[in-house]
């Protein structure tokens, strides 16, 4: 087949279209002008002009995480590429499929410290799943298709394709995606059947099983989440989820114990400590989850289903690793165990549930509901949830206490509804991510649950939101502090609040106005409901600045270096259980 010669830039556009891309988040500059010229001449791709390249990557992450598709970013060379680095690292840590096209100086100038030159493949090598420098237009189409394949296959992640400007001008052949096959990269999807049988046997025999589901379930997709819920119900076992896994099992399911980990529930963490079988499904034993490793779930056998062999035995030794896609593994377990899994020892199971119910009765998320003068942040989220629970709602967050309260108090009954920066903990993620989610779901209600400090880190994206008339809602829990930092200073540094108070915060109402959005501030708990109602009834972008108790801390909390059964349940515990010296050095 003699392909018509296209310019490199046209090849880029054609490859994106053939990959099913409908939206690109980007920002122009000299090195990518040929691509912008090709964009100008076509109608299949929509370009969303962000206000900062970091915003473009987070928007692509929000788009990807809420749809299960690859998010696409286009930025220029040098500063365009370096600005994207935080977003790329975020996507790597949270396994989000993103393809980021970066402009580059022409090949003959590479290495010359040319204008706006940066060693983009060098800089992004450790913060991408893979990257390419296209030196020959004949390689361009293949590398672009490979980039999509790599980004979404196996454990998803960000892929950078660096495009020297001369390559974008050069005429070259186009290769369609069907004709591109990666030389070596073939992640294992099918689990080993022998291990599946062993897993069924272990689950059937367990007296105190616990499912520990994670972001891998979301990565695998709604089908895998449905299989997961089926297995949890079939075995009548309790289930906890990580921050990244919320929504994989409906929060309303009685088997759900809430989130696990540092700010997880008492019942989830004690169940993890006391179970005799832990089934980790697409979760990676992160330090926020395990607490002190030598005290982590000491009496359990562990099954770990993960697509990435490097997640297995990284932090915690497991007894039965199963490498493969969680969806496939869960289907195989269900097929093989249909008969044996539900006839487990029912007396033991009831005893396990009795223990759990006792932990649940501690009501670990309780807070002082009696305050009439101050809005408690937990209360604000509870109200937001009540008003939106029956709507088509997507939640993003920034990073800090508000993020943890959102995870604790907002209930997700479906996957892909919860977008948060877990692994990197990137302040400034939530607003651009909400933008990306809203682009993907124009009719849906999209809310960024924000902290007043974090939201300022990418506040310029309000301008993008204005340009595309996106009805994104920003729900700021304004405690005037970098609350999470303040909490650690209270617990670990004798209450010396060094630089964690933000003086001279902007007037968020005026700020909203300046960006063409509606802004309101609410300070009185009695007026909160009305304010939320007004926000939801407003069809444009909206910032609701909720003044909340500046002194509130996020509990429960397992301090760094502590074990699951050494949790702080509230302010009364802080004094009794001081943080250990080994804990101090941890983050």
């Amino acid at each position, binding site marked *: 087949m003699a392909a018509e010669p296209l310019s490199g830039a046209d090849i880029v556009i054609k490859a994106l279209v053939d990959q099913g891309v409908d939206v690109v988040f980007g920002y122009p500059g000299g090195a990518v002008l040929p691509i912008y010229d090709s964009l100008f001449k076509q109608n299949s791709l929509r370009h969303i002009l962000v206000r900062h390249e970091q915003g473009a990557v987070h928007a692509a992450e929000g788009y990807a995480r809420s749809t299960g598709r690859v998010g696409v970013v286009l930025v220029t060379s040098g500063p365009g590429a370096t600005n994207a680095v935080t977003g790329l690292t975020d996507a790597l840590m949270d396994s989000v499929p993103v393809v980021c096209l970066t402009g580059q100086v022409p090949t003959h100038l590479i290495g010359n410290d040319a204008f706006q030159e940066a060693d983009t493949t060098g800089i992004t*090598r450790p913060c991408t799943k893979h990257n390419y*420098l296209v030196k020959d237009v004949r390689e361009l189409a293949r590398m672009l298709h490979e980039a999509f394949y790599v980004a979404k296959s196996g*454990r998803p992640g960000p892929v950078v394709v660096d495009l020297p400007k001369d390559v974008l001008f050069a005429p070259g052949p186009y290769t369609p995606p069907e004709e591109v096959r990666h*030389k070596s990269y073939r992640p294992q999807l099918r689990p080993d059947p022998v291990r599946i049988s062993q897993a069924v046997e272990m689950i059937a025999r367990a007296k105190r099983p616990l499912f520990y589901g994670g972001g891998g379930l979301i990565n695998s997709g709604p089908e895998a989440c449905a299989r997961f819920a089926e297995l949890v119900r079939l075995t009548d076992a309790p289930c906890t989820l990580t921050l990244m896994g919320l929504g994989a099992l409906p929060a309303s399911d009685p088997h759900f114990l809430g989130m696990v980990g540092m700010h997880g529930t008492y019942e989830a963490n004690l169940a993890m400590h006391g179970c005799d079988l832990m089934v980790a499904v697409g979760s990676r034993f992160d330090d926020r989850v395990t607490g002190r490793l030598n005290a982590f779930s000491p009496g359990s056998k562990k099954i770990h289903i993960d697509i990435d062999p490097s997640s297995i035995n990284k932090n915690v030794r497991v007894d039965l690793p199963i490498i493969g896609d969680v969806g496939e593994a869960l289907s195989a377990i269900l097929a093989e165990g249909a008969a044996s899994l539900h006839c487990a020892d029912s007396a033991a199971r009831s005893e396990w549930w009795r223990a759990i119910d006792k932990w649940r009765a501690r009501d670990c998320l309780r807070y002082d509901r009696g305050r009439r003068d101050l809005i408690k942040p937990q209360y604000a989220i509870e109200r937001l949830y009540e008003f939106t629970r029956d709507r088509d709602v997507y939640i993003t967050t920034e990073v800090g206490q508000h993020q943890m309260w959102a995870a604790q108090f907002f209930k997700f009954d479906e996957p892909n509804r919860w977008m948060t920066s877990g692994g990197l903990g990137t302040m400034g993620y939530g607003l651009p991510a909400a933008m990306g989610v809203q682009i993907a779901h124009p009719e849906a209600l999209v809310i960024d649950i924000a902290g007043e400090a974090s939201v300022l880190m990418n506040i310029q994206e309000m301008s993008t939101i204005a340009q595309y008339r996106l009805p994104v809602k920003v729900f700021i829990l304004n405690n005037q502090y970098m609350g999470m930092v303040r909490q650690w200073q209270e617990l670990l540094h004798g209450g010396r609040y060094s630089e964690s108070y933000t003086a001279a915060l902007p007037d968020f109402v005026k700020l909203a106005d300046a960006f063409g959005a509606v802004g309101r501030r609410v300070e009185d708990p009695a007026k909160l409901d009305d304010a939320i109602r007004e926000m939801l009834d407003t069809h444009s972008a909206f910032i609701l600045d909720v003044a909340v108790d500046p002194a509130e801390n996020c509990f429960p909390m397992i301090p760094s270096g502590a074990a699951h059964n050494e949790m702080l349940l509230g302010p009364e515990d802080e004094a009794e259980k001081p943080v250990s010296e080994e804990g101090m050095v941890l983050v």
Partner: protein
Amino acid sequence: MVEIERHTIAVLVDNEPGVLARVIGLFSGRGYNIESLTVAEVDRANGLSRITIVTTGTPMIIEQIKAQLSRLVPVHKIRDLTDEGPFVEREMALIKIAGKGDARIESLRLADIFRARVVDSTTESFVFEMTGSSEKLNAFINLMEPLGLVEISRTGAVAISRGAASF
């Protein structure tokens, strides 16, 4: 105390730009040790290079190293030679001795015992070439130390499994 083990790992990779940087970046970024690393193309037709890495770590770290290496996109295969049965490991060194008189004679005598070859000589220097296990090279170098040793260049280890089985 968990025991620190020494492993020789062979990695077959696409011979593409940046692949060595990926491997080295993985080791430095994750704090793994490299005792030695060698690389060269071994299959021109398929564009494959072979990297031999000698590393040390606890069994859990060694397992991570292998998992992390296999996860690099241009990596085709990896083999832990230390785990997978008998293998041959060899290293080459070029060793320069400068000086005159008895020490010079003695260095020549020892080189003979160690089967090192003289690849360059002047009236006041020798360059010895020696191939063998890294331990043997170390032993020879130690003996040369007092005899006018001035410079060493070593390749790092290359290794291959014994028997008919191939990668």
